[in-house]
């Protein structure tokens, strides 16, 4: 049996989630007695595809083509499904990234495979695999079993360890593709990046979020300053987004992004249940709020019951010093 690890790339470079998925595939393969192989799709991706070898993948299949340089849900789904069939890979792993979350349901539909989405743990026991995944934005966890012979999993970014690269190169083999114009009925024609210099919320190792207690959009400046000192992403509560202070893509919570950074700093956020659902799986949580009874303190590892306008600039200054950035 084979496990196919979809190694996401952008501009020919493998993304961090590619290594997370590759490493998870290798570990799962060890548990169920299977072979993990990689799959890279894009234009000019063969060279970097061999990097997956360092994470324990022996062989990587590359789907190369100019028309594959930008994502196409329909064409990519065909490539992955065809590869899974021809390689007898009954298990396909994707990152639960924007691309993976779009691609996996299509591949699952095509392969008549059950889907376990946004998994935070995978465990192979005997012949079966148990996937643990959050539901209700993390208010609950389920152990899910897939009963179909073919199985598709997406893995939440930032949760699975990529392991350490050991410098071994994987063998890369180019796939023969049979793509027609009709496979490109949906295709990306352009990409724009909005926040140069700051990581995305779902990929960030550190997030600094602000809430209604900041009182207005201008006061997010100090949140951004602290974020920039820490190399962090900026998030916001639903209240701050609904007030129009921040764009909707910054929202953390049940109707926004669910995040699992190493450090989440909640500033002037009271901690409504729908917000807690989106961030309480963060490894460390710091809360700064004037109200000592705010629910956010129930999930925080470290709290300061104080005025954000006083504490945050001081925190920025001291972090700058501690990180040698002053």
């Amino acid at each position, binding site marked *: 049996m084979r496990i196919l690890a979809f190694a996401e790339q952008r501009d020919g470079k493998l993304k961090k989630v590619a290594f997370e998925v590759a490493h998870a595939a290798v570990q799962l393969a060890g548990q169920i007695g299977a072979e993990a192989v990689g799959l890279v799709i894009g234009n000019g991706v063969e060279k970097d595809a061999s990097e997956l070898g360092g994470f324990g993948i022996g062989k990587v299949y590359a789907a190369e083509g100019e028309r594959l340089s930008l994502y196409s849900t*329909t064409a990519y789904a065909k490539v992955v499904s065809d590869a899974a069939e021809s390689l007898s890979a009954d298990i396909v792993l994707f990152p639960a990234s924007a691309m993976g979350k*779009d691609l996996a349901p299509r591949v699952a539909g095509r392969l008549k495979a059950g889907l376990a989405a946004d998994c935070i743990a995978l465990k192979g026991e005997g012949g079966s695999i148990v996937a643990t995944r959050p539901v209700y934005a993390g208010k609950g966890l389920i152990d899910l079993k897939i009963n179909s012979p073919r199985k598709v999993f997406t893995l939440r970014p930032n949760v699975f360890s990529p392991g350490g690269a050991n410098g071994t190169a994987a063998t890369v083999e180019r796939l023969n593709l049979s793509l027609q114009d009709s496979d490109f*009925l949906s295709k990306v024609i352009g990409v724009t990046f909005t*926040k140069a210099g700051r990581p995305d919320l779902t990929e960030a190792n550190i997030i600094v979020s602000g809430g209604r207690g900041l009182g207005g959009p201008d006061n997010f400046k100090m949140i951004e300053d602290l974020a920039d000192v820490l190399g962090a992403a900026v998030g916001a509560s639903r209240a701050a987004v609904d007030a129009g202070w921040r764009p909707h893509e910054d929202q953390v919570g049940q109707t926004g992004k669910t995040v699992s950074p190493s450090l989440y700093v909640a500033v002037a956020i009271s901690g409504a249940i729908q917000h807690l659902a989106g961030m309480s799986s963060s490894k460390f949580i710091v809360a700064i709020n004037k109200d000592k009874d705010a629910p956010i303190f129930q999930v925080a590892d470290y709290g300061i019951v104080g005025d954000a306008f006083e504490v945050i600039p001081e925190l920025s200054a001291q972090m700058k010093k501690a990180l040698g950035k002053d």
Partner: protein
Amino acid sequence: MKLFVCVNQVPDTETKVKIGQDGKSIDRSEVNLILNPYDEFAVEAALQLKDKNGAEVTYVSVGGDSVKEVLRKALAMGGDRGIHVKTDNIGDSYAVASMIAFVLKDAGADMILFGKQSIDYDDAAVGTMAAEMLGLPSASVVVKLDVDENARKVTCEREIEGGKETVELTMPCVISAQKGLNEPRYPSLKGIMAAKSKPIQEVAPSAVEPLTEVAEMKKPPAKQAGKILGTDKSAVPELVRLLHEEAKVI
């Protein structure tokens, strides 16, 4: 244009999750059910197309009798009719997508809209999976939508990590809506009254077995409330020290 919007009924965001007796799902006894928030953006997108170009808007919902409430809610916002795929056994995303694909395969849809995910199981899968089953192109997590009906072309923007992708699709197609696409309208009193007489057709589901099975549902490990380090900026040095030495995150 014939537009279909698939809507789902979910527990509201204030719901505190209690594990049910079966140990595999939530206790729904005290749960307030609402129209899935992301589906509201899909409804609004369809209604804006109807307002602009004229279209027939049909809502589809899969589930027990209570899903009629979300069909009525959507119909109160606008639109023409509802289809209730009646089943007490929803199964999983694969089963729901199959049932929707079965109902819509010969419906002559120009566009099928979904919310980007339901806020209960958070699979974010049904729309794209149904698109695959129907052989249609799709775009998910859409925050901007332009429809050129004459050219049968749809251009939209979808959210990706740190930016947006512009996606071009041919019609018929499937779109799943993300917050930011529009501001959903509130149903007017007139709309609520009108919705009561709009037709909701009950249809039987296709026979389909779910491919996944919940073995167990549990609450996430409870976080212990941590240390309060102080009440003003004099606590900052200790915070920096703990983040460095204890948490080791900086």
